């Protein structure tokens, strides 16, 4: 069982898929010879030849060619370097990839995986800081994942590649060079979906995904020391979303639900999670929603920190919520 950090785990998953799934291709801007701007795809080009290649700065052609190749039986894995760049070619995801299976009445399919990364990192500009998962979760026909650990990064990628629909896998670049952990790399591919109960406690259920999960877990631990025990449910898959697990969990936590995400609050996927719980009748009282304040993201880290939920805000929010 290799010890891998997040980027190493993604790399290992890509390697495994390239080895075991001959239909895979891997391409995007700077992913081959340079090994990716974050080094995630290092050495794959050396080992898999022309199945791994660099492309022009042409997001529409990257995504569109992946759609076309997938229609013909390939399983392309392509990279959009920053989630913000999806926006120059979102058509290929929403108008094209998402429609293919349904509109052809199942005669065609588009089993492609798009890797990207998103979110803010210190001094990233407003055009390199957005969290855009809600654009994809509002698009029927797409699958969406957003892992936060090396193991999940590995598993999500393998599941995505074996899945028969277009999947968007969203990393957060601040995770790439985090701590190493032992990663199981030889398990059979799992179906997509699922969630993890990362902490258990009766005070409330906190749902979270992506990089901010780590802050939520740290907060939960801190609160546990302060005598407040929370359940934390991490949902690396947003579509399919594990509403069942959440709703079961809410039974044990008195229907008290908090959602924490880095995306800006209004229209973020957190709202959907809350409404589904409400509709299912498993919610009790007012929920708590912690997201980035509705704003553009300023470059100066101290300014950004005033908008994006950090440790203190999450701690204060959850503490008050658990008490209330």
């Amino acid at each position, binding site marked *: 069982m290799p010890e891998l950090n997040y980027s190493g785990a993604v790399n290992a998953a890509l390697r495994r898929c390239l080895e075991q799934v001959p239909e895979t291709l891997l391409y995007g801007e700077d992913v081959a010879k340079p090994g990716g701007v974050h080094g995630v795809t290092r050495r794959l080009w050396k080992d898999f030849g022309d199945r791994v290649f660099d492309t022009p700065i042409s997001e529409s052609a990257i995504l569109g060619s992946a759609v076309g190749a997938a229609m013909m039986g390939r399983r392309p894995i392509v990279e959009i370097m920053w989630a913000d760049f999806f926006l120059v070619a979102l058509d290929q995801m929403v*108008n094209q990839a998402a429609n293919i299976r349904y509109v052809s009445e199942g005669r065609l399919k588009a089993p492609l995986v798009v890797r990207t990364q998103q979110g803010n990192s210190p001094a990233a500009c407003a055009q390199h800081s957005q969290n855009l998962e809600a654009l994809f979760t509002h698009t029927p026909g797409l699958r969406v994942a957003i892992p936060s650990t090396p193991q999940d990064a590995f598993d999500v990628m393998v599941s995505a590649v074996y899945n028969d629909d277009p999947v968007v896998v969203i990393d957060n670049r601040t995770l790439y060079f985090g701590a190493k952990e032992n990663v199981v790399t030889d398990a059979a591919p799992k179906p997509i979906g699922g969630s993890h109960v990362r902490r258990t406690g009766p005070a409330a259920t906190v749902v979270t995904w992506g990089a901010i999960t780590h802050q939520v877990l740290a907060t939960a631990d801190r609160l546990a020391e302060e005598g407040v025990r929370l359940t934390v449910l991490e949902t690396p898959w947003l579509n399919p979303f594990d509403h069942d697990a959440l709703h079961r969990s809410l039974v044990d936590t008195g229907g008290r639900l908090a959602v924490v995400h880095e995306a800006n609050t209004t229209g973020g996927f957190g709202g959907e999670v809350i409404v589904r719980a409400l509709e299912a009748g498993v919610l009790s009282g007012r929920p708590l929603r912690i997201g980035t304040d509705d704003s553009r993201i300023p470059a100066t880290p101290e300014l950004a920190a005033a908008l994006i939920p950090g440790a203190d805000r999450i701690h204060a929010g959850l503490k008050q919520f658990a008490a209330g």
Partner: protein
Amino acid sequence: MTTDRLVADLRAMWRIRAFEEQIQALHKSGDVRGSVHLCIGQEAGPVGACDALTESDALFATYRGHGWAIGRGTPLRPLFAELLGRATGVNGGRGGSAYFSAPEYGFYGENSIVGGGASHAVGAALAGKHDGTGRLAMTVFGDGAMNQGAVHEAMNFAAVFGLPVLFLCENNRYSELTPIRDMVRNEALTERAAALGLPATRIDGNDPAVVRETVAGLAEAAREGGGPAFVELITQRLVGHYIGDVQQYRTRDELEADGLVEPIAVATAGAAGSGVDTGALEREVRAEVAAAAEQALADPAAEVRTVKEHLYA
């Protein structure tokens, strides 16, 4: 050209035209609903170009794609059925006039986003490089689509990787209700593709023989590793952009001039000159097409029961 070839082409073009006219009638009667883009006047392109494609090749078209689907050999009944919202439609009525596919005939779909399908063809050729078919991919779009960034990206992408993709631009002089000459400074659209490194040629898109020969030659070169190529077919639509467009933006003179050069008029004159009974030919094809429409009309409606299927695997 042999008379046989001429007759075959005329027949093939009539099949498309009669199909489109039948759709016009079915639209009038309310059986076909919604926005429909006919290719009347542009039949020579599909008839000439599709001959260069083999079974494993892939074609990607636009909303003005009925003729191209027929060109690839898709039978008429399931096409009619698709536009009529029948369960027997090529996509069970999900696609409709503007966005259907028939992959079993190498027709990988129309596209209702201008320029949206060009990069799909690039991907299909890319797939062919790895799946052992060496597949040629062809994509067709209009003159107006040349101003869409996605088309530029697709051509460059294919060029960089030397992929066997043929980009066919059907220049019918209009984008919806606006003339292309007002929307470009340099009307030589081929130069755009040439600048990206694609052999690019402008041809008479009203002559199926010219189209066939040009496309076949480029297809061969592409299959041999020559990379993508671009062909501009000069043609015209004899009808509105969509059914109902009354074409106020065109003069009667222009429409009349177009009528003189349009492919069926020209081919009919040619065939008649060789002693062919073109009237009989036309009647024969119309009967065949009408029969297909009749059958499709009798087919069962698309099943509402299954409407939620096929969103995901």
